[in-house]
């Protein structure tokens, strides 16, 4: 028996209805459209039929027309509340702005720590204005000193200095080249890891026995520290980009496997009954129901996997003996930390920006692919 009371809630007034729709846009809950007992399912069920809306005028016998007018109105009303953020571009912009805000806040905290506990601030002729500025922080904390936590502007200025003495290449140019190199490895690892993850999940979903047998190994694989595993991989396949790709793949396949398995299992039991009533084969059920239903889950995993693939590639470069990427840059600049901490911080900044670019690329794909599934698209 179904849960009657939940689903037979009285139709709410229009405001409530709009609030529901607005909520539906925010809550990251895939498959609301199919779930009868999820809050999402009932929130949708509670949307009253336009025909029952008193504002639809007399309950016309001409169902088509009445529904026409009011349905458009309902959708329009919902968009009025949450507005432009519900377009694909808006959803993407929201994510990008949130990340930008994070950087601003982190930067603000950073400089605040230095204001209270860092090395004295001294600017002669500030930005060419002729003003001299001096600030003596009330405390002295070693960790906030210019040696360990350089000013953000010093890090940024460092990007436009030669990356090593006598070189005509700036640090920024050098790091962008390294980033591109690392991203290439990471991308290959990301694609391979995603495909492997989807493959494993597809096998597991069709065979409980295979899941019971092999899932422990999938989980165990992630308990081995990647820094310990990377040299072993390099020994096995030899030094070079292949080792880096394998490390990136290794980190990527796991979140995809777990999330994709959930996604493939996410269809409403009645959707499965429906497919059964059509006499659908397993293959039909897989490609017409399970796979499309899993897409929001896949994207959730891919967003994690994209940044992990970058991290995997950076970590893999040391043991992999690959010299052109961000990983090697981090290692060499950390050895020069005493004389130039700005270089290391600049590298860390670029490395995190690379991760963010990877994340945003997946997010952009997500909002495009899921543009007609607002319930599955946070």
């Amino acid at each position, binding site marked *: 028996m179904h849960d009657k009371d939940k689903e037979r809630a009285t139709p709410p007034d229009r405001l409530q209805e709009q609030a529901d729709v607005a909520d539906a846009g925010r809550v990251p809950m895939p498959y609301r459209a199919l779930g009868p007992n999820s809050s999402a399912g009932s929130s949708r069920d509670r949307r009253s039929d336009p025909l029952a809306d008193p504002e639809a005028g007399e309950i016309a016998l001409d169902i088509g027309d009445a529904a026409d007018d009011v349905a458009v109105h309902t959708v329009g009303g919902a968009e009025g509340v949450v507005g432009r953020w519900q377009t694909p571009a808006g959803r993407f912009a929201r994510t990008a702005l949130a990340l930008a805000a994070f950087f601003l806040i982190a930067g603000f905290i950073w400089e605040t720590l230095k204001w209270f506990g860092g090395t004295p601030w001294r600017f002669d002729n500030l930005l060419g204005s002729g003003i001299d500025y001096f600030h003596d922080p009330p405390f002295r904390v070693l960790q906030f000193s210019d040696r360990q936590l350089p000013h953000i502007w010093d890090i940024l200025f460092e990007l436009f200095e030669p990356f090593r003495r006598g070189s005509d290449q700036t640090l920024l140019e050098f790091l962008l080249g390294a980033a591109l190199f690392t991203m290439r490895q990471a991308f290959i690892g990301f694609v391979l890891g995603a495909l492997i993850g989807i493959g494993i999940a597809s096998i597991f979903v069709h065979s409980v026995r295979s899941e019971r047998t092999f899932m422990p190994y999938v989980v165990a694989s992630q308990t081995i520290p990647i820094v310990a595993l990377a040299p072993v991989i390099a020994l096995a396949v030899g030094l070079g980009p292949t080792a880096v790709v394998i490390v990136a793949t290794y980190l990527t396949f796991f979140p995809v496997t777990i999330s994709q398995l959930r996604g493939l299992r996410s269809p409403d039991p009645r959707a499965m009954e429906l497919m059964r*009533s059509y006499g659908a084969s397993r293959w039909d059920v897989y490609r017409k129901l399970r796979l499309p239903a899993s897409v929001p889950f896949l994207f959730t995993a891919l967003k994690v996997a994209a940044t992990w693939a970058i991290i995997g590639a950076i970590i893999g470069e040391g043991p992999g003996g690959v010299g052109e990427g961000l990983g090697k840059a981090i290692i060499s600049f950390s050895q020069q930390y005493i004389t130039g901490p700005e270089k290391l911080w600049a590298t860390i900044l670029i490395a995190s920006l690379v991760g963010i670019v990877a994340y945003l690329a997946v997010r952009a794909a997500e909002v495009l692919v899921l543009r007609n599934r607002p319930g599955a698209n946070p």
Partner: protein
Amino acid sequence: MTTTASAPVVRLAAVDKVFPTQSGDDTVALRGIDLDIHAGEFISLIGPSGCGKSTLLRIVGDLVQPTAGIVEVNGKSAHQARLDRDYGIVFQAPVLFDWRSVEANVRLPLEISGVSGAERDARITEMLELVELAAFRDHYPHQLSGGMQQRVAIARALALQPALLLMDEPFGALDEMTRERLNAEVLRIWRATGKTVIFVTHSIPEAVFLSTRVVVMSPRPGRISHVVDVDLPQPRTDDSRETDRYYDLVTEVREALRGRVGAGPGPAVASLERARAEGSFG
């Protein structure tokens, strides 16, 4: 779907369904169900929660296996009938695939059964016109109201032109106004297509208004306690809901649900029933 005039579309004989439970006490969901349903009938299954009416519907659809008894659909086993796509099913929730447009949702069963090309397009257009949603072809489910979504679900169920339509409380999640509107629409579709319909509901007025026969079930164990023939003239309209015969039948079904068959309501009870008839059971 050629059946001889006398052969029932659905034949249930001595059907039992027992669900084993962990504690060892088996739950008897259905006991000794005998029911023949003939071509063109509109049968409602009504009863309190737990009487097994949804289970019975799923047994007819070969979605649940009976523990004992005979289930035949179109003279075949229920299993064969499912493989032959002899029935369409509509659930309480529309269960539309939200990544598919309205048109693509109706196309789904046609894709799976291999109907293609011009015939498929014609079938989709015909079904969308039948449920009066042709203008919403390219909309996505989230852009439709609950009632409209349920109409898409009906179009999808009818796309394979099954002889039998199974509906499991299809309007239970909708408000009363929408429900009455869709009731009229289901009757129109039923008359236009000549389908045999099995309709599970909680609502006495809905059951009486729609059906040619109301099958009243009682729980623990689920069994058929009474069958009420609904002799309201066809075609039924909103006016049918205001006839004395309609109120009498609503009362009869309600009495049957209370297990007081044959007692007959006194005049005072009858007027009370008349007032209550507007509401739904449960």
